[in-house]
């Protein structure tokens, strides 16, 4: 007997059953109800003070990293460089449109190292230095940078297309705020008491900002003035900047020894990255951005300038700009202790530019 032919469907006896339901009416009512619920949620989000703006996704970062040319002016580091630098002012002063690669809640070192390892790159880098973040030996601060870098390296056509479509929606819909209004984030805020002895990790403050396609972040007015949002952000910093206790399965002395060794290594690796960029004709300048209030006291106590900033400049042989060295930079008030308001960021950048230009020229070789 001949085996069944694979070009005939006469032997294919499997057919999926379709439940007998009034499908058209059902589907149309579902589409209508879903559209209505989405519209209601959009109105609610706007009522809560949210507006349409981009999410700062790994795709947006990868898009910016793709824009880096061999001689680009690049900003790396943490959220202070992200909030406090105005790209238009920098372009007017330095003659080049900067590319914003600073990532909120991240250690900037992996991005600097990646630029240093790019054999074509010989541009200028402005790097924000927050000691507790730049020197982080591991954890979420490094993971955030590495996640963005991985997206850049693996970014495929489908993801690029999805990013373009996503931006079209995010620029029009306020409820698309994955850091605050995604279902998972909303569930995180359910008031469910924890077990005795449970140590809850600090929650990230809401990054209440607008972001454009160049990743220019601007603090929204509601965060820049006293009020509930300002309080939420302010209260978030100290727990986040407090180092976690040593793990219980490692003796404290051994843990501290490992931490110090990791910090020493980070200084050396940073110096090596700076040297690589310089060897190709590029330059790196570190900047210490303004901070105020209890957060400044905390950082000064935990990471004193002489042990961190001074050591960084010494080991990397760079000329940095520290806001405290210049009265016109130190006079700004950070409304939530860590970042400048949108108008102040423009003024701050104007005042920073002469010092940045000088540092770029004066860097010792």
């Amino acid at each position, binding site marked *: 007997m*001949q*085996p*069944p*032919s*694979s*070009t005939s*469907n*006469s*032997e*294919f006896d*499997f*057919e*999926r*059953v*379709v*439940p*007998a*339901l*009034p*499908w*058209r009416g*059902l*589907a149309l*009512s*579902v589409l209508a*109800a*879903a559209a209505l*619920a*989405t519209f209601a949620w959009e109105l609610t989000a706007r009522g809560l003070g949210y507006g349409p703006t981009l999410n700062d*996704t790994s795709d947006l970062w990868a898009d910016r990293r793709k824009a880096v040319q061999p001689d680009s002016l690049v900003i790396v580091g943490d959220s202070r460089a992200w909030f406090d630098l105005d790209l238009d002012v920098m372009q007017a002063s330095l003659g080049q449109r900067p590319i914003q690669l600073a990532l909120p809640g991240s250690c900037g070192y992996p991005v600097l190292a990646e630029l240093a390892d790019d054999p074509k790159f010989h541009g200028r880098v402005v790097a924000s230095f927050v000691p507790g973040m730049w020197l982080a030996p591991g954890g979420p601060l490094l993971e955030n940078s590495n996640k963005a870098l991985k997206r850049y390296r693996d970014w*495929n*056509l*489908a*993801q690029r*297309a*999805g990013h373009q*479509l996503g931006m079209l*929606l995010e620029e029009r819909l306020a*409820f*698309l*705020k*994955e850091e605050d209004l*995604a*279902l*998972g984030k*909303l*569930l*995180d805020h*359910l008031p*469910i*008491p*924890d*077990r005795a*002895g*449970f*140590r*809850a990790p600090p929650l990230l403050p809401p990054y209440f900002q607008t972001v454009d396609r160049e990743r220019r972040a601007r603090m929204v007015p509601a965060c820049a003035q006293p009020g509930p949002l300002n309080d939420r952000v302010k209260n978030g910093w100290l727990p986040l900047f407090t180092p976690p206790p040593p*793990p*219980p*399965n490692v003796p404290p002395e051994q843990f501290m020894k490992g931490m110090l060794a990791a910090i020493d290594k980070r200084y050396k690796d940073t110096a090596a990255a700076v040297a690589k960029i310089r060897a190709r004709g590029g330059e790196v300048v570190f900047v210490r951005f303004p901070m105020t209030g209890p957060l400044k006291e905390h950082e000064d106590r935990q990471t004193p300038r002489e042990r961190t900033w001074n050591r960084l400049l010494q080991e990397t042989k760079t000329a940095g700009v520290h806001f405290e060295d210049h009265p016109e930079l130190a006079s700004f008030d950070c409304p939530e202790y860590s970042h400048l308001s949108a108008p102040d960021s423009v003024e701050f950048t104007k005042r920073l530019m002469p010092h940045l230009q000088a540092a770029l020229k004066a860097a010792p070789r």
Partner: protein
Amino acid sequence: MLFNSLTFIVFFSVVLLAFWNLRNWELRKNLLLVASYLFYGAWNPPFALLLFGTTALDFWLGARMAEATTPGARRSWLIVSLASNLSSLGFFKYGNFLLENFTWLAAQAGVTYVAPKLDIFLPVGISFYTLHSLSYTLDIYRGAIQPTRSLRDFALAVSFFPQLVAGPIVRAADFLPQCAAPPVWSEPRFWWGLLLMSLGLFEKVVLADTLLAPTADAVFAHPAPLVPLDAWTGVLAFAGQIFFDFAGYSTCAIGAALMLGFHLRDNFLFPYAAVGFSDFWRRWHISLSTFLRDYLYIPLGGNRAGAALAARNLVIVMFIGGLWHGAAWTFVVWGLLHGVYLVLEHFLRSLWKDAAWTDSLGARLAGAAITFVGVCVAWVFFRATDFGTAARLLGSMFGQIPGGNLLLPSRQLLFVGVVMALLLLAHWRLRDTTIEAAVARLPRVVVALLWILMVVAVIFAQSNATAFIYFQF
């Protein structure tokens, strides 16, 4: 391209619109083939060439095999097909694994050998499309089908985008007959397909990614011992996550295919209500377990040569099944563990085959509970990145490591508890029926409300297009 991405929504809408508006069946199939290669090439265009190479070679080998006049010649063509497919899979998926193990073995023999680290990028879905393609030559060799004369149809069978990268593993014998004549437009079938896609996306985006993955990720990444409650919650979360992730993908694939008029078989049938491990494998990743049964277990002799050889064959099959999932010894242990479970079960069944009590509700419930716990213990090896993590977690689960940490906030314990309780209840209630029959029994208003809930939850979840777990296999 991921089902849970905006790109796919646009892509699929365009494909659907064009497909149902083209009159000519040949043009429609050309459209699907181009769409499938676009779908795949969007990850990494050069790998589309590898996919086509695998397809074209098996097409040609299938024809040679059918023309061969002697059993020896037929076997030779099959060996060429097996060798080409498995060597491609072996190189891309197992190259570094083999080198690492060779280096270790050499070191044990006192030979210092530093293996070069091969910079191999694993083509997404290679484990799936290799089996799609291989099923064709294997079925021709077995005399189950005749070769198709259309390379286009065969290429479509291998690359049909709904099932290309993460299954179900659709055999050419199931797909090629559907290429013979165009499907007739059916509006109920179209909307049912859309409902299945909604269900699949809800499983993936809301249940797996939003409610369960954070707990599973936290527990498996924790570097220290945990209290038993947290360890069990993490493992249960992973048991739920991998089901919703993988079954969600399969449900999306079945729904998408149905919207195009193609029929794919079920890949999951309420597996966590399985009573016994053989029942589990009749319900979990059915397309893989039937593939292994038909093309490996039965050719090895199955259970035809006595209990001892049947046990050996089961262990071999599950060893291969474990290795198919990933190039790591943890996957092998996961497979072997299931092999041992199956052997034990066969032994107990032979021991109790005449005992009436085994059919009682209590015994069936106990059997389901034991099966589920056994499956969860095996998941520890599947998810853990190394044996140290697996041992620490198992020790924590069974209270063997004192002083474990409290890791999970109460809300995560609650989410996992509620989702898993509902999942187990649903599987138990539906274990002897089908999703179609269950939906048909529900009042219309309940179907509408559930469908609305799923769609709204998917929109509100704001998925950032995370990859499905099975893409890495």
